């Protein structure tokens, strides 16, 4: 009964609104470019648009597929719709989702976990937009007057955040944490030494894929036996 509400009502309506908002998002994203072309008359040659887009796609193309698939087990259906519309996945949406789950005392990968992470992601999106809006309306002059030292220190928040999120999960599943960092460390080493350069584009997508699905496979082996009894 309890799960019926989640599977039969919540998820279908999330899929419906998720697809509607993504579709609207794709249309409205074009807004500024269309205003430039139709109102101001600044339309670049089609060839230049294609050249610029292709250059970007050669870097990002693989990530269009790799990122949604790799992060889906973390985000679930509602989280995927939200995170890919709003961006800033790994530096904000995922950390906020897991922090919210930790605070509510729910497990990732359960229905309760998905509800809590949806709430967490929604709040992080609204706060992020509020902060950006205040900043941009105050004007770039305020931001530009930040001393270089402050910017340097602020840029250290991100690596510290990555470490903290990893630590939060690793302490709960230490064996898997060691496996994960070993796989990822080896793959990153290969990437940095140029051993993956035979792959097209920016091969860090290969590192993400191997790290995520390698760790999942190891997790199934390590914890599969414990589950047999259940």
């Amino acid at each position: 009964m309890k799960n019926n509400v989640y599977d039969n009502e919540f998820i279908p309506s999330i899929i419906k609104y998720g697809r509607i908002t993504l579709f609207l998002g794709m249309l409205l994203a074009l807004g500024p470019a269309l205003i430039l072309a139709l109102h101001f008359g600044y339309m670049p040659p089609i060839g230049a648009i294609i050249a610029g887009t292709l250059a970007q796609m050669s870097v990002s193309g693989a990530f269009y597929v790799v990122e949604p698939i790799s992060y889906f087990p973390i985000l679930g259906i509602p989280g995927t719709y939200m995170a890919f519309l709003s961006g800033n996945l790994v530096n904000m949406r995922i950390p906020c989702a897991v922090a919210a789950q930790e605070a509510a005392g729910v497990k990732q990968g359960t229905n309760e976990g998905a509800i809590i992470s949806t709430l967490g992601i929604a709040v992080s999106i609204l706060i992020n937009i509020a902060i950006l809006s205040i900043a941009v309306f105050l004007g770039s002059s305020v931001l530009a007057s930040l001393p270089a030292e402050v910017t340097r220190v602020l840029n250290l928040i991100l690596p510290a955040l990555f470490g903290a999120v990893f630590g939060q999960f690793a302490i709960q599943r230490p064996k898997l944490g060691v496996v994960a960092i070993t796989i990822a460390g080896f793959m990153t080493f290969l990437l940095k030494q140029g051993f993956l350069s035979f792959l097209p584009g920016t091969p860090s997508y290969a590192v993400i894929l191997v790290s995520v699905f390698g760790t999942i496979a190891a997790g199934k082996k390590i914890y599969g036996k414990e589950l047999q009894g259940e």
Partner: protein
Amino acid sequence: MNYLEVANHPLMWTAAALAVGVVILQSIIFAKKSYKTGKDIGLTEQQMKSAMKTSAISSIGPSMVILAGMVSLIVTMGGPIAWMRLSFIGSVTYELMAAGFGADAMGVVLGKEGMTEVVFANGVWTMILGSMGWLLFTFLFTHKMDKLTKVLANGKKAMVPIISAGAMLGAFAYFNADRILGFDAGALACISGLVLMMIIVYIQKKKNITWLREWGLTIAMFGGMLIGSLI
């Protein structure tokens, strides 16, 4: 620089606001539905409020990082585009790269001499079209991806949290390895954040301190930042 007048035109603000509006709308719809369903499946109001509060606290640090990077985007692409693109799909690194490719396709260096309105427009097109792939893929396939998790879990529901944890550890192990192998201040910040968070989670599980649950991630990220800044 003339093109910035166009870039900061009220109509550009309007177009950007519509796109940002969709993101806000989606968040509000999803949050409302989750809150209602959460009650139905037995989550307490206290749990959900604590989750939202924690997420709000944890958003401050990452937002400050985005702000620090936003300057470079405002000065090259104007306020509306910077505001829209950072609220919507993108990240600073991606957006600067895409705008750069767009300008480059017209033989101009982003924000430098020769940056006309048309070159600016090409940067905007490239940013938008270059990020369409993520939206298109999630639009087409998200509702089918549950099958992937089911296959990975061999159809066992108890296995799903392990799959999630594996994905989480795998992804963040890569981000950690990437930073740590830089052997710089970022590496020290990363390791410090990791150790601090482990200590915080350990203490919090032992003593069950509520505020530590809500502030833990923020303490670890700013603590790691401070330790990293020492070198």
